[in-house]
């Protein structure tokens, strides 16, 4: 086939090699120092929280009653062995010298170990609520935006309605009716938390659904489900990812607040929120400030890092912010 020179030139793929979109996003994220630092810090924190307890001499609930409220870096030679929870296996033998790096609480439990167990719960709640909430929000948002009309009106009025409900009094009522548990708390927070994600997604879909590639798919005979989840959602996901990473810190703070007020994670299970509550009296703050300081610091670091990661993702995912 004879092709003239001009045509051949026009058909030549542009010389410049583009990165695959995903690689480019990762690169741009890594250039954002604050976000990258936060990401490393959060990763370390998560590793510590989930792996740390295996290397600890203490268990979550082991008490040394004659050393309540010890300050950080107190050394102590164990008078009794520390046994695993729920069995009699010895974890740390009698006579071992141990250090309470962050001190102990009012029952003589190791604060560091407890902080790690609490972190598991707090992070689990934050991630579970955010992921489930955004998932629900994305699905409702895309259906609402794509079909429009009555479905849209119904979904958006539901969002408005949920947003008018005051969360704290409702949780107060719920905890008196049913026994609070971590999973129930997650469900409740998801129930109230999907609305922002749904609105965000719907807005994106409203503009995307008018694009010609959607018509092209329709002309090929694509089903609504295919158009929504193969074509629309992937193109609308960037703001949702940013929203989710910012949402993580909100959920974390909310969980802390709820646990602080006594509606969240119940003792003897630890969460950063209820550790703060235990330390929330004037006497404790005055005499044993480390008991409030470290859980507070953990919440502070996490929510700050999630915010920075969100900022970094926003910049990395925004195609207009190239270079």
């Amino acid at each position, binding site marked *: 086939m004879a092709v003239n020179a*001009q045509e051949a030139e026009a058909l030549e*793929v542009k010389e410049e090699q*583009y990165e695959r979109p995903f690689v480019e996003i990762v690169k741009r994220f890594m250039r954002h120092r604050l976000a990258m630092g936060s990401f490393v810090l959060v990763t370390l924190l998560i590793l510590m929280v989930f792996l740390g307890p295996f290397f600890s001499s203490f268990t979550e609930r082991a008490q040394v009653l004659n050393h309540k409220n010890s300050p950080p870096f107190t050394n102590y030679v164990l008078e009794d062995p520390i046994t695993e929870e729920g069995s009699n296996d010895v974890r740390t033998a009698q006579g071992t010298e141990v250090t309470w790096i962050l001190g102990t609480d009012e029952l003589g439990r190791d604060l560091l170990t407890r902080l790690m167990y609490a972190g598991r719960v707090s992070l689990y709640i934050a991630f579970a609520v955010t992921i489930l909430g955004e998932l629900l929000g994305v699905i409702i948002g895309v259906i609402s935006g794509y079909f429009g009309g009555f479905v849209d009106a119904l979904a958006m009025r539901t969002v408005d309605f949920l947003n008018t409900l005051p969360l704290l009094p409702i949780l107060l009522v719920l905890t008196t009716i049913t026994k609070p548990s971590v999973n129930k708390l997650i469900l409740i927070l998801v129930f109230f938390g999907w609305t922002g994600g749904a609105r965000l997604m719907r807005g994106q879909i409203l503009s995307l659904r008018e*694009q*010609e590639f959607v*018509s*092209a798919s329709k002309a090929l*005979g694509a089903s609504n489900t295919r158009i929504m989840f193969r*074509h629309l959602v992937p193109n609308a996901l960037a703001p949702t990812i940013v929203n989710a990473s910012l949402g993580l810190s909100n959920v974390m703070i909310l969980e802390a607040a709820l646990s602080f007020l006594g509606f969240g994670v119940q003792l003897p299970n630890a969460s950063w929120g209820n550790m703060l509550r235990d330390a929330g009296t004037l006497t404790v703050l005055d005499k044993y400030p480390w008991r409030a300081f470290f859980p507070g610091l953990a919440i502070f670091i996490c929510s700050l890092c999630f915010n920075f990661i969100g900022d970094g993702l926003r910049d990395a995912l925004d195609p207009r912010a190239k270079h």
Partner: protein
Amino acid sequence: MTVAPINETQPRVQPAPAEDLLQVRDLKKYFPIKGGLLRRTVADVKALDGVSFTIKRGETLGLVGESGCGKTTTGRTILRLIEATSGEVIYNDQNVLTASRREMREMRRDMQIVFQDPYASLNPRIQVGESIAEGLRIHGIGTAKERRDRVVAVLERVGMNASHLRRFPHEFSGGQRQRIGIARALVMEPKLIVCDEPVSALDVSIQAQVLNLLKDLQDDLGLTYLFIAHNLSVVEHISNRVGVMYLGRMVELTSRDELFSHPMHPYTQALMSAIPLPDPTVKRERIILQGDVPSPVNPPSGCRFHPRCWKAQEICQHEDPVFEQKKPDHWVACHFAE
């Protein structure tokens, strides 16, 4: 098949002759304007108000008219990308507009569309190979390997090659993307392709390439085109017959040569006089239309063109001219066609 009652505005109401691939009869599309507290329909935008034409097997029917006259709406309504308000679209003795979901799915394999904007018509997050294969996948045609072979074959047919399969749309130029868009339509082996201004977004040098590609494909594969454009020279280059639209109506429909040599409708004559001539020494009487296209919400009474027409008489203000055959195979809607 029952014969529908003869309606004045319809040029032809009878079973489609074998040579006709597509028949459009009295097609209407009104977009409602909602207003007030209760979101009631307060008015309609009459984007299409009784359009009728036929497309013969293997021909190219050009559709021209200025912005907002309903060309694009016509193309999309035929493919049911927009649902029509009323009318009939007969494809192979089957009414497209009333087809069930299953029947429609089958018919979609035969009728494809190429879009105007090559930047918006490809999903930016999907590799072009997969975009092209989507139709095959939806209809469950072939194994993964066979689909790939077909996609490569069709890519080569439009002048690209297998190395482009795994690239993303942003890596291509406008002309290349338009070729990809054509490949996506072609892979279904359709009989009819609606070309919705396929070259208006391209550079002039690329326009010719894409037009010639479309022509070659038609010759090799026996395709039928409904070619929508606002550029008269493009339409003249590619069409066998041409329809001229004005404000949701067809005002003139005839063969290309007849239309360009003897335009009968004043609006067509005005359009023709606006084509630039390559010879600066030729003096030509330019017909300058007064005013703007009226609103399709509230079209003028009688002939819709009368407020801008230099031939308008009293009759034009209250009597809607019939779209009728004034010469063999030359349809015009004008009281004073000549």
